[in-house]
Every structure is written in C-alpha cells, then in structure tokens.
C-alpha cells in the first residue's frame, strides 16, 4: 500500500497516517490462536465452504465480511462446532485451537465451547433474571466454589461488558426486560463469564440501533485486550472500525484476507474491490 492511496481513500493525513501504520506494524507479530485448514462444509449435497484457510490471531478482532449466503457465518459456527446441532451439516478439513484439532473425536465439545464462546445475531437472553443469565455459564462449568465467588464473577463480567452500572440495582429482574442493546451486552457478559479465550460474534449489532451499536463496538475494542474476537458483520464501516484483520468471503470461497486497512484501501482482488465499494452485496 502506498501512502498516497491510503491518504486518498481514508482521508487520514500526515501524523495520523504514521500512527496508523505503526499500529499495523505492531500487530503483525501476534501469535495464531485459531487456524482453519482446507475447511469445507456441506449442508446435505450443497457445499457451503470451499477449502478455507484462515488464521485467527490472538488479541485481535478478525472481521468476516461478504454478501449474504457467502459462508461467513458458517465458518464462524465451525469455530466452536455450533454446526454440530444441524444434522445435515458436514465439516471437512482441520480447525485448530492452540494447534489442537477441535474436530478430533477426543475433544469434548462442552469444553471447547467454554473456551470459544459465542454471541448471536439476535440478543437471546434466557428468560431468567439478569443475575441468572450471567451466572448460567459459571454454574454449569462449576467455576464458582460458593455464592460469593459467583457474585464476584457476575459483577466482573457485567463490568467488562459495560453493563454493570446500568443494571446493578435490578439484578433479579428478568433479562428479557432490558432494551435490545442492553440485552446484547448481557449476552456478551454471559459469554465472558465462563472466561473464554475466543469470542465469536455473529452480526452482534444487526438488531441494534446506532447508539447501542456504538456501545457494543466500543466494548468489542476493549475486550480485544483480553480475548481473541471473530466477528461476522454486514456493515463495512463496522468492520473498518472494530477489526484489525478482515477476511472477505464470496460464494463459499475465502477471496482475500489481511489487515483491515489493506483490505479496505487496497484490495488485491476485483471482487473485494467491488464489494467494499458497494457494487454488489
């Protein structure tokens, strides 16, 4: 990428440009957390993903973008084996978490999902109190020895999700009574509560209004320090705002992946260029 192109496309000039470039250089050395190797996915006879090879790096936000039906959500759901719940879904290839194949028969899917948490497109708090929603994960994994510890975990998780101050006086009220944005942050808090290493987010803001979206995006940026995050999004602006790396999917093929700045300012592939400039999708 040349400085001219970057300046021209982003409108960032001079000094800002230098820091942006510095930030990119800093990130290059992050270790690989998860790795997809020749991942193919079939739904019955229909192939949804073709030989996807993608590295997810630690303490980064990786955005998966692409038009509807391109396979980005399918890939995301492979990362914690959520596709297992779909009978006709068949996954080939290897997906490694810390160099361990998660589709190995020896791997316990329950443990895997505790390490790779998930936040869904539509906020789906359980029909329980706010406290019980967050305490759900720690309870089933036996993370707290006593009530005090459980309360500690719940409070920390809510704090990290930036929700604590809003709900601390009504922890026993139903989680379904919160606003959409609060519900989504509750779901993030719920995912954080089991101390995952990776958090998968499937269009976490698509059901939210702009202000709630901004809050969740801010949160994602903060969470990056502790967790590895993979986010599927339809919003190119969102991908540009929150992610360090971006992978562009098209018709089940991983077309291009790289630093977000590169993808958005200087895409190598014509299809990526067309998509991010809004020519299709």
């Amino acid at each position: 990428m040349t400085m001219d192109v970057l300046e021209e496309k982003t409108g960032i000039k001079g000094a800002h440009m230098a820091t942006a470039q510095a930030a990119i250089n800093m990130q290059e050395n992050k270790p690989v957390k998860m790795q997809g190797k020749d991942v193919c996915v079939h739904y019955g006879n229909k192939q949804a993903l073709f030989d996807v090879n993608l590295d997810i790096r630690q303490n980064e936000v990786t955005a998966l973008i692409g038009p509807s039906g391109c396979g980005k959500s399918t890939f995301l759901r492979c990362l914690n084996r959520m596709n297992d719940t779909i009978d006709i879904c068949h996954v080939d290839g290897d997906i490694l978490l810390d160099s361990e194949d998660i589709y190995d028969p020896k791997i316990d899917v329950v443990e895997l999902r505790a390490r790779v948490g998930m936040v869904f497109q539509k906020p789906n708090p359980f029909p329980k109190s706010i406290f019980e929603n967050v305490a759900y994960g720690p309870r089933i994994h036996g993370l707290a020895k006593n009530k005090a510890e459980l309360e500690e975990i719940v409070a920390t998780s809510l704090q990290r999700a930036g929700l604590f101050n809003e709900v601390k006086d009504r922890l026993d009220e139903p989680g379904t009574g919160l606003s959409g944005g609060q519900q989504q942050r509750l779901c993030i808090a719920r995912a954080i509560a089991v101390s995952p290493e990776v958090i998968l987010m499937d269009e976490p803001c698509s059901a939210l209004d702009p202000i709630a979206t901004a809050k969740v995006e801010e949160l994602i940026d903060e969470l990056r320090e502790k967790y590895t995050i993979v986010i599927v999004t339809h919003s190119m602006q969102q991908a540009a705002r929150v992610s360090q790396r971006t992978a562009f999917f098209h018709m089940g093929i991983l077309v291009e992946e790289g630093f977000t700045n590169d993808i958005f300012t200087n895409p190598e592939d014509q299809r990526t260029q067309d998509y991010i400039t809004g020519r299709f999708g």
Partner: protein
Amino acid sequence: MFWTYVAILLVLIITAHLLGRTKAVHVAGEDPSKLHSRPGYHGAYLAILTAGPAFITIILWLLVWPGIMEQLVLSRMGDIAEVLSKPELQAFIRDAKAIAFGGIVGFTDAAKEEAARHFASIQQTSQYVESLVLAIMVGVGAYWGYKSIHPALRARHFVERSVMGLLMVCSAVAILTTIGIVLSLIFESLMFFRKVPVLDFVFGMHWSPQSAFEGAGAEAASTDAHIFGAIPLLVGTLLITAIAIFVAAPIGLLSAIYLSDYASAKVRATAKPVLEILAGIPTVVYGFFAALVVAPFIRGWGESLGLSVSSESALAAGLVMGIMIIPFVSSLSDDVINSVPQALRDGSAGLGATKSETIMKVVLPSALPGIVSALILAISRAIGETMIVVMAAGLAANMTINPLEAVTTVTVQIVTLLVGDQEFDSAKTLAAFALGLLLFCITLALNIFALRVVKKYREQYD
C-alpha cells in the same frame, strides 16, 4: 318445510350476489375502480340483506313457535291446564301433537282429539303466516339493498361487520350453553341441598345412597342425610387421579422431551402419531384391558408378595388411566417444547451447556406454562373419566388411600345413581347433580390454581 325455506334462501343468496355484483359494475360505469368496495362486496352486501333477516326469522321461529303454539292450543281447550298436573299435561300435549303430526301415541281420548285438531289448524295458518313474513322480509331487503347500491356505498364495511356479528353469535352460543349447563347443575343441586344439608354432603364420611329408602318407602321426607357424604368419593377420585398423573406426567413429559430434542425427524414423524393413537382408543377398551389384564396381574403380583389385593383395585384403574392420558401430556408438551426458540438452545449450547443441561435449565422453564396446562388437561380428563373406573376400580365407596383396595369415584357414582328407572325429584337422583356440581367446582379450582402457578413462575421469552 324448514329445508324448503333453506333451499329457497340458498338460491336467493346466489341470485342476489350475482345481481349485486352486476349492478355495482353497472353503476360504476363498467369501471370497478370507481367503487368504494369491490363488486364482490356489493354482491355479498345484497345477499346478506336479502337472506339474513329471513334466516334469523326462521331460527327464531323454530325456537319460539312450538311454545307459542302449545299456549294457543291450551287457551282454546279451556280449563284443561288447571285440571291436569304438570307431567300429565306434558303427556297430553305430546299425545295431541302425535295425533296431529304423526308419531307414537300413548292413548287417545276426546280431549286429545280436539287438541290435535287445534294443533293441525294452527299449524296450517302459521305456515302461511311464516311464508308471508319471510317473503316480505326477502322482498323488502332485496329491494332496499338493490336500490342502495351506488359507487360510494361502503359495502365492504357492512360485510365485515356482518361477519363479525356471525362470529360473535357463534361464540355466544358456546358460552351461553356452558352457562346454561352450570345454572341447571346449580338449580338441581339446590333442590338436593333442601333435602340433604350442604355440610352433610360435602363433609360426610359415609356414602351409600342405595340404602336411602330402605324400609321407609320413597318418601323424600324420610331421606337419611348421613348416607350422602361425598368425602369417600372425593378420596377415591383423588387417589385414582394421583396414580394416573404419577404414571402419565413423567412418561409423557420425558417422551415429549425425547421427541422434540433427541429423536431424529424420521422417528418423530412416526412416533408422534403412534402416541396420539393412544388418545383415540375408546375408554371402554381401556376399561376391559384394566379389568381383565391389569387388575388380575396386580392381584397375582400382590399375593406373591403376601399383600391382600382386592380384585378390583384403585391401582389397576389408576395405572391404565395413566396410560390413557399419556398422549395428552406428551403431545401438548412436545408442541410447547418445540415452540421454545432455537436461539435460546443455541445460546445455551454456545456457553458449553450439554443438551440435557440446556433442556433442564432453559427449555423446560421456558415451556413451563404450556407443560402445566397440558398436565391440567390430563388431570381434568382423569377426574372426569368413568369407564375405566367402573370396570376396574369397583363401586364400593371405601374410605381408603390404600391403592390396593377397591374405591369408587364421583363420576362412577353419578352413573350408578342415574342408571335405571328413577324419579327425577328423589334425593338419590338429585345427588347426581350435586356430585356433578362438586366435580365442576374441583376442576374449576384446579384450573384457577394452575393459572396462578403459571403466572407466577412463567419465564417469558418474547
């Protein structure tokens, strides 16, 4: 006559519909977009105006006319209404009608012949009057409706409101029938409570109405209030229902969970209908299954353990009844469990919960209201069930909670009270209504209680 009217009206409806349509298109100058309502609505408008009032009149006529006709005949017959007692008068009218319009006549005499002639002549006139009235209604309705069709006519609103009216009438019929049944239960029960004090009935520990009149003749005054104690029946009912629920709730609920969350689509597609077939087996079949297979088996099993088991036992009836109500529990629970959003299951699985943890902690609490109502429906069925108990649990009103003994239930006793020739104002017969009322109150209380529980513990997911 009735069916002739209906046939004529049907023809009129079709004609009026076509006429209304045609006229509407015509007044719009062959351009239906000028009309407020589409031509079809104009057709329906005219059809309703033509046939609606006539239909209502026919129905009202059917309901009201027989009573009026009897009064007219009796008024012409002089003082016969005062001379005869109420049942005699009813028999008299029945015979007179049978002579006039055909039917089985008890016996004839001069007075009945005369009444029959009156019936015949009044009926003759009434038919002319009815036909005339209907013709006028149809004519006025059709004329006025036809004239009023013009482009701005809000025919659509009229049709919508008419449909709503029809729907309201239908629901009113259902509700009014229920109210009517309850009221008749209450009035008959009040007659019973005049003979037997309420408290003796509700809290009495002894039930043997068959001995009510021993030695004393059928005089109501000699009724012994202490043999109408309903407690043994209630205990028997609750015992059998409890056993049935004890069988049906776990089996039904667990099979529902299996069907909805574990079974493959293929298994589910066959297993569910098969389970539902259980609900289609006539209770009489369950009854002899209970009496001929289960009861002897339990007896043999009990004896081998050194227990004394009567050949008709609450256990046998309860077990079979439990099998009978499994489909109510399983089918309804399966539906509500299925309707819990997949998003909740995914959310739970995404946190590393196993399938059973998800079901126990997320799915079942969300489905609780539906599951409770399924159980309530099953309990209501069990409480109201008669045949199995008659055949397998016996008629002896034993006051016991030992499931190995013979017990009886409220419904069975209602049957035995009303079977055979009975006077409809003896305490024994009226006791059946009081039992019915009691049963109704219990089921009602159960429903209200269940609604409360559901309201308190429900976890809403939308």
